[in-house]
């Protein structure tokens, strides 16, 4: 199991080098997206000013404090608490995020489904698991909320975070059909019968 330090953005070759079970630390830039962001981008046809090609997005909606805009802070926000939300709700946006926007990495919790796994194989992408609910710790990996787009959707805007040492994250779905979630689910389904028999409920 290798550890990778990725300075974002990355190439297709770099993402295809990741294998399920590897760990990753991200550096430089990370974009934050969520349900409403993607509903507006892909169902309502809205476009972002950001170039997401080769980048990583995280399923989030942060707690923010309003601050004065400055030379390096174009967003007018500073991070109070940035964490990760359940990815499964955003399953159908994986392929369009990769096809239309060129996203290479999705970070989330709880995993994505078969459709996303296929998109990662077809287009070159990976899903990295962060520990959900560990947001106080995750916030210490965020240096700044550099910029924001689609901010009428606040707190579900599209955020550009400057990050430092974001991780370690676990490669949970890779570009070669590997998914730790599918493995765990298959194992749980296999054990189900014995568990029910012990309960007298088979």
């Amino acid at each position, binding site marked *: 199991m290798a550890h990778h330090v990725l300075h974002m953005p990355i190439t297709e070759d770099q993402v295809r080098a990741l294998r399920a079970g590897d760990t990753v630390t991200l550096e430089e830039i990370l974009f934050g997206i969520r349900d*409403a962001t993607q509903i507006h981008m892909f169902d309502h046809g809205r476009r972002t000013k950001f170039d997401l090609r080769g980048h990583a997005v995280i399923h*989030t*909606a*942060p*707690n*923010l*404090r309003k601050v004065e805009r400055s030379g390096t802070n174009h967003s007018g926000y500073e991070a*109070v*608490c*940035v*964490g*990760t*939300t*359940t990815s*499964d*709700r955003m399953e159908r946006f994986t392929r369009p995020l990769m096809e239309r926007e060129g996203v290479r990495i999705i970070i989330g*919790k*709880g*995993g994505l489904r078969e459709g996303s796994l296929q998109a990662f194989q077809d287009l070159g992408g990976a899903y990295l*698991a962060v*520990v*959900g*609910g*560990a*947001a*106080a*710790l995750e*916030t*210490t990996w965020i240096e700044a909320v550099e910029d924001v787009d689609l901010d009428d959707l*606040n*707190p579900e805007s599209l955020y550009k975070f400057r990050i430092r040492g974001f991780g370690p994250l*676990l490669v*949970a779905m890779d570009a070669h059909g590997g998914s*730790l*979630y599918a*493995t*765990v*689910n298959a*194992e*749980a*389904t296999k*054990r*189900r019968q*014995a*568990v*029910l028999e*012990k*309960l*007298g*409920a088979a």
Partner: protein
Amino acid sequence: MTLMTKPGVLPQGARDAMPPLRVEPEAIEEAAKLLYIRACKILPDDIKEGFARLDAAETDTTARTILATMIENIGVAERMDNLLCQDTGIPIFNVSIGRNVQVDGWALKEAIGKGTARATREHPLRSSVVHPITRRNEHTSCGERVPVINIDFTDADRELRIEMIPKGSGSENGSFLQMLIPADGVAAVKRFVVDRVIQAGGKVCPPTIVGVGVGGTSDLCMHLAKIAATRPLGTRCADAEGAKLEAELSEAVNSLGIGPQGLGGDSTAFAVHVETAATHITMNPVAVNIQCHSARRASATFTPAGIAIGF
């Protein structure tokens, strides 16, 4: 005998010798604000002990790393005075009103809403609450019928208790109800719980508290599941059959190998909690409501001695 209450006809017991506990709306508003923020930052001791128990017993390497990260996060949140999780949840307030308490019920509900909105603006907290159809966010964590306020009455003399629960959405989306029938028996109840835990997988942020409601009506059954999911660890179902079910199902779900975050391991749930209610001869309802590992609670207890803040 008359059904009319007349002044001067109430029995003069010992209770009446004490002046009633008066709780002012201003104090409730302050408490609601304080509790929302506190609940988001400090995990109750029973949950911390639950983490220590799981960590000591976990055999999977990845699972141990994940549990260690969760435990580290609890410390970081306390040291940096920050939120444990970015999800500020749907605010729920459980109000227990004891005997010989004087409170304006309407003002109490208003005060809880005001305190919630102030916590959201003044801390600030992310408002996670939107209109269900327009999806408009008022940035107050409030809206129609939210905060959720549950009011109950207890036998405690001159005591009013407010419990605050920021219920996270990842685990709340792991809510399931089935109106089973009597012929399905308790076996179907058990199967339902096991299958829903498999279905929820990592989406509900395990290790979880799996709340199970058995009996009642459809709405009561789901409410029981919520009570069960938010009950402190170490407490048991008051009903003996329910308590037996808790022990059996706790072992069962932790034999599935789902593990922390659904990435494999022994620590799928801190516990399965069951709450029961009588039901109809034709009915056998079961509900599951899940609490994520950020099992946050805070409480304020008003007595003549003052206000005690706890979990």
